[in-house]
């Protein structure tokens, strides 16, 4: 096991140990913070598949994050209002079951990524950045001004959704759930990177013309990766909405896209645990600097600037060295 492997274990265990210790010390808020780190890291794991493996710099992943969140609220809100989800063409009830909601959020995120990706992948480079940003913004404005589903007020879910066999209202149990999903996504991501598809994606990123000449359509490969990426980020959105028991267009805003990207880059692009390390560092910075000054974002900005200019490769990259190749 190389240094990065050791580091991955350290990060994974720390994210487990911190909430457990906080739980033992009766500090539930720290458990909640760890849950937030796990969920945001999950969003980052999704983005990392597009960004790190596929080289697609998407500044619109908030769209999938928010759609996942809305998928949760749209399914759960009718239950608390004692109304059916829809009556036409068939009568369908809402649900408070997390597995069903997760499935819906994953599908919704993936479908949105299919639509946005199919258009955006006609371009590349800086165009792609701007276009994904613009599509994200379009959904944001739509969510604010469309009268159904709360507009800017968003939707509150008063009781967290349920998971068979767990009490999700207990912070440590919900944290464990989020941790489990994150680990599953990391395993999936690792498997994907090593699979035939991962190889094809790597080829499409490094040399699309060569890939085409090998009979591999770079557009299809990249679009598939983008859809998987959007689906995972959508799942993260559903969990995030459940963490807050609330969803609003703020989840769709371009600042959210920026922050998800910051997690990935802070931790290290294309590093398996990059998003986890990045999200943890970001939340830590937010809370440490927040205590210092009302203008803490100024210092956050300066810290980010320092990291991008002088600590290339992000946290994992700086600590583990250039072990895996990445551009």
């Amino acid at each position, binding site marked *: 096991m190389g240094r990065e492997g050791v580091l991955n274990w350290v990060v994974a265990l720390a994210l487990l140990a911190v909430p457990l210790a906080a739980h033992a010390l009766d500090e539930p808020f720290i458990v909640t913070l760890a849950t937030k780190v796990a969920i945001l890291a999950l969003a980052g794991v999704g983005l990392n598949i597009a960004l790190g493996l596929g080289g697609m710099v998407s500044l619109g992943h908030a769209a999938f994050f928010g759609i996942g969140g809305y998928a949760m609220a749209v399914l759960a809100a009718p239950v608390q209002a004692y109304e059916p989800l829809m009556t036409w063409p068939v009568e369908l009830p809402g649900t408070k079951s997390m597995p069903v909601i997760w499935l819906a959020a994953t599908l919704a995120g993936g479908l949105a990524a299919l639509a946005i990706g199919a258009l955006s992948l006609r371009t590349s480079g800086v*165009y792609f950045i701007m276009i994904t940003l613009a599509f994200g*913004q379009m959904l944001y404005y739509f969510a604010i001004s469309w*009268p159904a589903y709360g507009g800017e007020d968003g939707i509150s879910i008063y009781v967290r959704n349920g998971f068979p066999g767990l009490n999700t209202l207990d912070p440590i149990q919900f944290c464990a759930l989020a941790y489990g999903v994150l680990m599953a996504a990391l395993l999936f991501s690792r498997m994907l990177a090593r699979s035939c598809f991962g190889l094809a994606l790597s080829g499409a990123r490094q040399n699309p013309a060569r890939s085409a000449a090998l009979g591999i359509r770079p557009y299809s490969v990249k679009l598939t990766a983008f859809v998987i990426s959007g689906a995972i980020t959508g799942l993260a959105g559903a969990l995030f909405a459940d963490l807050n028991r609330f969803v609003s267009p703020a989840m769709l805003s371009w600042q959210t896209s920026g922050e998800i990207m910051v997690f990935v*880059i802070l931790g290290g*692009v294309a590093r398996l645990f990059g998003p986890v390390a990045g999200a943890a560092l970001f939340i830590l910075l937010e809370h440490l600097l927040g205590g210092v000054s009302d203008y803490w974002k100024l210092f956050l900005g300066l810290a*980010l600037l320092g990291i991008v200019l002088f600590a290339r490769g992000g946290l994992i990259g700086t600590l583990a060295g250039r072990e895996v190749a990445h551009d």
Partner: protein
Amino acid sequence: MSVMLLIEQALNGLQYGVMLFLMAAGLTLVFGVMGLINLAHGSLFMVGAFACAAVAGATGSFWLGLAASLAAAAAAGALVELTVIRRLYARDHLDQVLATFALILVFSEGTRWLFGSFPLYLDIPDALAGPVTLPGGIDYPLYRLVLIGIGLAIAGALFWLIGRTRLGIRIRAGEADREMIAALGVDISKLYTIVFALGAALAGLAGALVGALQSVQVGMGEPVLILAFVVIVIGGIGSIKGALVGAILVGLTDTLGRFLLPILFSTFMETSAATSVGAALASMLIYILMAGVLVVRPGGLYGRA
């Protein structure tokens, strides 16, 4: 709905577009020459507006404020280029996005630290206040007409600068081939600083001009920035002509869409719902326009791709 109202709305769209052009021109120049995507371009728009409001407030002269906005934005641009941006040219777009995202935080919170959280006061100069009557009997604000004039004049000046001057030749050479222009003996880092400062000054000028019409506050730059991105995507990256056409197209689409869509919907819906649904769709219209352009021409209307 009268024809006059439609004409007036078209003028409004034109004015909006021309201001977007000032933002987009700098952005597209910086991308074309240096290959840099600058998310902090909106912050320079804000710097211009704050500089203008501060100087106009202290001296009582809008024109001094306007000069200050150009100077402050250009200086801020040059400073940022020298300290941060030039380390990013060789980096990939990802690092550029993160670094300039961080710059937004620094600029926004720094401005709030200096000027406080309350919006600043900046008004139209007395000489340009109030409406004038146009042929056809339209009462139209003089200041907005002046904005259209200034914007088009600057567009003309930019075309001249790029097409006819030595600096322009260097800029075009830089767009074509970075190594070649270094081989020509041009001091490339100086050229980059100048181009970046020029783009910043244009953004700052737009901020000051628009600031007199709207609220001068922290965060005013980001919505404009995203619109400028849409403009550039439509027009084609690196093309000044594309930026102008794209900006006017976006300005007209947005203004006319917000005006016409609710009217369209009210022909078959109840008024309150129609205005709400119409407004919701109008807010998406420019993005739909962008998607449409992409389908037909992935490189934008005047793009090289």
